[in-house]
């Protein structure tokens, strides 16, 4: 297993084509815009070597018997599913950000499960390729980015109906030695500082969409791959020092990029689905279940940091003992732990798939994520409430460091006597970082927008059973247990009472 330092060093050996703000990022490990995201991902490597965390950070590979980083593990039990979310919460706590590596983990697990099912139906050999690929990832402790969301063009049309056929990633050529793919994937977390990209379809497909039913893996610097790193609110604060960022070390959310595949060649051993359109929906659903499971852990880990920051600000401003502040901070904890309950529940309720790998309960995983589209807004609202208007009016680090204004800021931005002004400023910036900007929309849309979860919940919520229950209780349908308990039917029972 690589250490954090070795991971950072490993990135310098890759030469991905990445653009940001009209320039090329030459080294993701060293560029001030991407370095904090690299640091966050490095934490996933570093903690695997720390005895205080290795219990959740590592696993034994069922493929090789070797000790591996849990992010590269195929879950072999519900215990593994639970350990994954425990690991993810810890990493949210340690980075106060997104550490990006769960997407590749979920992609590998989803493809592992689906490739087995494809082979069973069509007699293909995708599953063996997936196993070999995962062994390669495990052996080299690589970080693959999972790339699912296509750019989609006109959302009312399926892939094959688009005016521009490249709105979804597709196979443009099949050769003896592999395939050539074209298209683009949007908002791909952590891809600029990954070693590999695992691409998957983004939606259920029909027979006309066959060319779009493609899953594959390529190195991030494969020929024809271009990434355009997305802007974030306040991203250029990274160039102005460390105070104004709030979380200068690990940034905010994962750092997402548009990934363009411009006729990229993929050798057959790295192709995991090619034309099996009837399995695209399953792959999406399995991946989404894994990824939605995570959000009740990573966001809760980040919430732990925000709750701590809010409590610190309250102390620094002399309001920590006010009853409404105590109540509000307790409410933040309640909201966060509610989400934690959800993620644990969907993990404990997980099950074994025909491939032997385990996956979380899809209904509960979707409920987990749907709560995450709501609760972080509420705990952020409370954090801003307690922190006060200064969360958006605080003077900058440059003014704080300017000899002409420093003493004025020292004097007038001070809270309680025992807290240095700079510490109060840093804590307020952390609240700002975690409750304003990219963090909230990421909670909303990461792992799928709320409507995607609603669709899954509606599909799996077994409404018919609930309607039947109501009919029995309302006396519209016969209650078999009532009859056994009372020895007569409901009608006869109530007739006697009259």
């Amino acid at each position, binding site marked *: 297993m690589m250490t954090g330092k070795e991971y950072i060093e490993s990135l310098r050996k890759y030469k991905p084509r990445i653009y940001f703000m009209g320039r090329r990022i030459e080294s993701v490990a060293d560029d001030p815009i991407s370095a904090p995201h690299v640091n966050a991902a490095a934490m996933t490597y570093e903690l695997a070597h720390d*005895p*205080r*965390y*290795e*219990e*959740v*950070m590592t696993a034994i590979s069922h493929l090789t018997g070797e000790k591996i980083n849990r992010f590269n593990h195929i879950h072999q039990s519900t215990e593994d599913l639970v*350990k994954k*979310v*425990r*690991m993810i*919460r*810890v990493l949210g706590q340690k980075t106060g950000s997104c550490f990006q590596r769960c997407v590749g983990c979920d992609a590998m697990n989803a493809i592992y499960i689906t490739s087995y099912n494809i082979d069973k139906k069509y007699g293909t050999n995708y599953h063996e390729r997936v196993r070999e690929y995962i062994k390669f990832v495990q052996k080299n402790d690589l970080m693959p980015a999972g790339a699912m969301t296509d750019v989609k063009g006109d959302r009312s049309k399926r892939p094959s109906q688009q005016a521009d056929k490249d709105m979804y990633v597709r196979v443009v050529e099949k050769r003896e030695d592999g395939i050539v793919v074209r298209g683009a994937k949007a908002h791909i977390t952590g891809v600029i500082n990954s070693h590999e990209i695992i691409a998957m379809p983004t939606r259920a497909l029909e027979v006309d969409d066959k060319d779009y039913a493609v899953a594959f893996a390529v190195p991030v610097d494969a020929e024809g791959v271009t990434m355009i790193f997305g802007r974030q609110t306040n991203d250029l604060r990274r160039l102005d020092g460390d105070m104004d960022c709030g979380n200068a070390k690990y940034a905010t959310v994962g750092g997402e990029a548009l990934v363009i595949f411009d006729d990229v060649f993929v050798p057959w051993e790295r192709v995991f689905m090619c034309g099996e359109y009837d399995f695209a929906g399953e792959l999406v659903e399995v991946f989404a279940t894994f990824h939605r499971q995570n959000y009740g*852990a990573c966001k809760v880990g980040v919430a732990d940091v925000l709750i701590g920051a809010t409590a610190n600000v309250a102390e620094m401003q002399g309001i920590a003992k006010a009853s409404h502040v105590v109540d509000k901070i307790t409410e933040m904890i309640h909201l966060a732990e509610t989400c*934690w309950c959800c993620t644990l529940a969907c993990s404990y309720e997980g099950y074994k798939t025909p491939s032997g790998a385990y996956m979380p309960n899809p209904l509960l995983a979707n409920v987990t994520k749907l709560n995450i589209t709501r609760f972080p807004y509420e705990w952020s609202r409370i954090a801003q409430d307690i922190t006060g208007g200064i969360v958006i009016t605080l003077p900058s680090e440059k003014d704080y460091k300017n000899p002409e204004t420093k003493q004025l800021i020292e004097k007038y931005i001070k809270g309680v006597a025992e807290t240095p002004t700079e510490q109060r400023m840093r804590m307020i910036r952390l609240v700002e970082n975690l409750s304003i900007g990219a963090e909230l929309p990421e909670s909303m849309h990461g792992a799928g927008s709320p409507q995607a979860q609603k669709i899954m919940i509606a599909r799996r919520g077994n409404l018919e059973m609930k309607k039947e229950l109501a009919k029995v209780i309302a006396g519209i349908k016969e209650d078999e247990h009532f009859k056994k308990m009372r020895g007569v039917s409901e009608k006869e029972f109530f007739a006697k009472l009259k």
Partner: protein
Amino acid sequence: MKIAVKYCGGCNPTYRREEIEEVLKKHFQIFYSGDSELLVCISGCKKGCAGEKAKGNFLHFDEKTDEEEILRRVNKKLSKEI
């Protein structure tokens, strides 16, 4: 005296787990793997993940414990072992 320490993953601890190890370090040689006279499992909460698969001569802490109590329990275990 060789004491091995095994931590849980620390996802939602109710106290600072390192406090237990800090006490042990003051009095014993601590290892994270390999043979030892005693295995001390440190869990952050009552779920007790660190102790779930422990075997042999082991001791399990799952809540904040003062130094005196830690030493009492460790010494008791070690004296039994001897």
